[in-house]
């Protein structure tokens, strides 16, 4: 028996030893390859190469493959490969032709679209004026969740490639609204064929077709052979893997199971940058970190309190502490360099002014409840704001609720005075202005407005000249934020994407939503 016992223990020891040797071998081989790879790191983007496939990690699955059904901003990156939009946007968010080749506005309530010839949907259905009419009427139907195209009263088919949109009121945001969900063209044949099951069989005219979708698992895309601009599409296949956990996403990238990870958290940037196999793209976006206020109840029904909060927050300190210095302070929903940005709008951090405002209004012991989410980034933000506002004499009570519940509480419960949140940006500044500052918007739960703001918003909607629009947006923001404090902008949200260095061709845009179809793989 003792002999057996001994041999058994020897085998175990041997096994352990073997494991260690193997561990040593494999880590050696790994370090030598990574050294070899650093040399080619400085190569330029180079000529795009055809072929290959890429794997993308994505945090959430698409809510619905039918563009009129889903609502979250995370869907766009997964919809764009499938659906071609009538209008497209440049990286700095100016309109450019999509499958509508050109357009004109004969008067401020009519828009004429000239469609591209030779475009077909994945199922072979030709894209034409009838298809546009079908789609826009579908977007404005009862089943749709899209409200961007509500100003379109009727759609008139002029000929095979010309459509006339009749608007019920002037709407200068209509052009870029057609680059959003509302402009995503679905195949009328497929909608009629599949009915309620359409979302399981999405058919668009975009560069990729969905070949397989495992909900919460993965989406497989294959290049569409008859895409109208197929020389500009390089990949044969794309696979999107749904990986909800941020650490798991980064692990998958580091161990080469995925090649591209959009939406990296600011705190992970420095560790990824140290990895020679990984390239990080970090760009400013139209997105904002914000404080939404309930302006129809105490204490935010008092303008002095709103302005005290506006000036009592040290935005740069928040950026340094929460976002590791990434992003810039925001006094308006439009970042520097964007055409609607207005240089003259600034909000100075001025705790003395805040105290004075409260004193002049005869207020002391001001307090409010701030609703936030049980995610460490958000609770850190809420606590930092709480600390800063304490210095000007405002007490903040933090209440942490799961996202869905938090939003509902803020919308319906009188006790929830403020909500931390992201504003995800919209293609057209008018859409942003409407959503954030118009009286009947979802993002304005207190329904606050001033006569000046209302008339300026209407005026901007009826103005089609870009320069005049920019000027009007400046005036609106000045009224809504600087004068009145409808809501509190904090900082711009950077869009951080990490990718394997063999992935090329990524073109960031100000909207911050990644476009996958321009990517290509360096196979050398």
């Amino acid at each position, binding site marked *: 028996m003792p002999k057996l016992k001994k041999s058994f*223990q020897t085998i175990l020891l041997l096994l352990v030893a073997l494991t260690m040797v193997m561990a040593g071998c*494999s880590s050696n081989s790994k370090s030598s390859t990574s050294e070899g790879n650093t040399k080619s790191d400085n190569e330029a983007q180079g000529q795009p190469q055809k072929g290959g496939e890429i794997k993308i990690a994505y945090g*959430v699955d698409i809510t619905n493959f039918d563009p009129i059904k889903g609502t979250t901003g995370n869907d766009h990156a997964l919809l764009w490969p499938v659906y071609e939009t009538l209008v497209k946007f440049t990286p700095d968010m100016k309109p450019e032709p999509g499958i509508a080749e050109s357009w004109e506005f004969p008067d401020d309530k009519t828009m004429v679209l000239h469609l591209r010839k030779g475009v077909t949907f994945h199922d072979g259905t030709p894209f034409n004026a009838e298809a546009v009419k079908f789609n826009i009427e579908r977007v404005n139907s009862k089943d749709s969740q899209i409200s961007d195209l509500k100003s379109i009263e009727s759609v008139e088919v002029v000929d095979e490639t010309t459509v006339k949109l009749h608007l019920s009121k002037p709407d200068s945001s209509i052009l870029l609204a057609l680059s959003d969900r509302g402009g995503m063209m679905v195949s009328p044949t497929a909608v009629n064929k599949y009915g309620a099951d359409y*979302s399981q069989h999405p058919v668009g005219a975009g560069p990729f077709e969905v070949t397989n979708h495992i909900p919460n698992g993965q989406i497989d895309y294959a290049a569409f052979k008859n895409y109208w601009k197929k020389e500009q599409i390089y990949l044969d296949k794309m696979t999107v893997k749904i990986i909800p956990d941020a650490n798991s996403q980064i692990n998958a990238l580091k161990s080469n199971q995925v090649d591209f990870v959009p939406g990296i958290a600011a705190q992970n940037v420095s560790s990824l940058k140290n990895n020679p196999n990984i390239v990080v793209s970090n760009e400013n976006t139209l997105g904002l970190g914000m404080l939404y206020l309930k302006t129809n109840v105490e204490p935010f029904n008092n303008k002095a309190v709103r302005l005290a909060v506006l000036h009592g927050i040290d935005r740069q300190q928040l950026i340094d502490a929460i976002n590791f210095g990434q992003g810039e302070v925001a006094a308006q929903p439009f970042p520097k360099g964007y055409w609607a940005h207005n240089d003259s709008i600034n909000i100075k951090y001025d705790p003395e002014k805040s105290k004075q405002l409260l004193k002049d209004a005869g207020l002391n012991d001001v307090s409010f409840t701030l609703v936030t989410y049980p995610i460490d980034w958000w609770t850190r933000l809420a606590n930092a704001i709480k600390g800063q506002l304490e210095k000007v004499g405002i007490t903040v009570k933090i209440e942490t609720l799961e996202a869905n519940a938090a939003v509902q509480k803020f919308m319906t419960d009188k006790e929830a005075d403020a909500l931390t949140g992201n504003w995800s940006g919209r293609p057209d500044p008018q859409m942003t202005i409407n959503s954030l500052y118009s009286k009947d918007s*979802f993002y304005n739960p207190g329904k606050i407005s001033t006569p000046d703001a209302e008339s300026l918003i209407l005026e901007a909607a009826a103005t089609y000249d870009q320069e005049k629009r920019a000027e009007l947006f400046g005036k609106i923001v000045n009224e809504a934020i600087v004068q009145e404090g409808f809501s509190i902008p904090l900082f711009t949200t950077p869009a951080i994407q990490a990718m394997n260095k063999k992935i090329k061709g990524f073109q960031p845009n100000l909207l911050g939503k990644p476009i996958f179809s321009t990517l290509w793989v360096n196979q050398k």
Partner: protein
Amino acid sequence: MFLKFLLRRLLYVIPMLLITTLIVFSLILLIPGDPVLAMLGDSATHEKVEELRRQLGLDQPVMLQYFHWLNNAIHGDLGRSIFTGQLVDEALMQTLFVTMQLVVVGMIFSIVGGLFFAITSIYFPNSWMDYVARFFGTLGTAIPNFLVAMVLIIFFSLKLNWVPATGFTSIVHEPVSFLQQIILPGFSLSLAGIAVITRHLRSSLMETMDADYVRTAYSKGVSRYQAIFKHSLQNAMLPVVTTIGLLFGTMLGATVVVETIFAIPGMGQLVVNAIGQRDFTIVQGVVLVMIVMVIVINFITDIVYALLDPRIEY
């Protein structure tokens, strides 16, 4: 007699299903957050909210909603996901097979590991092997599976690069990558199982090793090896069968965490996502499947128990 027992057990299942589905149905409606608001996002206007609520039948009383769901479920219609529009039974079929592969691997690891530790610790009493087994029996239940999972990923995937950090391939598609990808999640899932089986089997083996019939066997000159495997183990396994049956249910629950960390598209991820979105048709479907599975496994456990132990009468 046995047949009667089977029938009686089957009859228990019906009220059990009714009560559990009703509880889950009410719980989903009790958690704060509104599926309609979650669906509409920022396009939510008052009219739209009311309209969608009516479309989904959410404006009706809870009991009525439940009976409506129940009636459809009995007729084999679990409805559609209120978010993606996918048929619930389709989503369940897709994910159930994935989760089952994970759970079966976890069960195999637990049973093999548990048997190994328990038997070695009895074979070499008070040796270092015994101490390792005892230590492991406590440690395995004390360490949460997500921590194990993360440590395993850091070491075996990122440092050593032996196995992928995330992902899943079905065994029917590519058995080799299935094995590579299932090892870490399977092990994270099984750690608690190994510990529980080790402790139960070890103490139950200790009892039977002291039993009279084993002493008699020794006196006849059988080796310790034979005493354990031929005489002691079969009797010692009896209480462990129950443990293994219960373990199945625990493991099914633990897949929720493990699937999230390893990005495995199974039922756990499906239900976590559905809870976040208040997609109650999906949640209800997953819960129904999980309950049925646990009931079936308990049922099988009882039968196995009866087969292993002829003394048991019904």
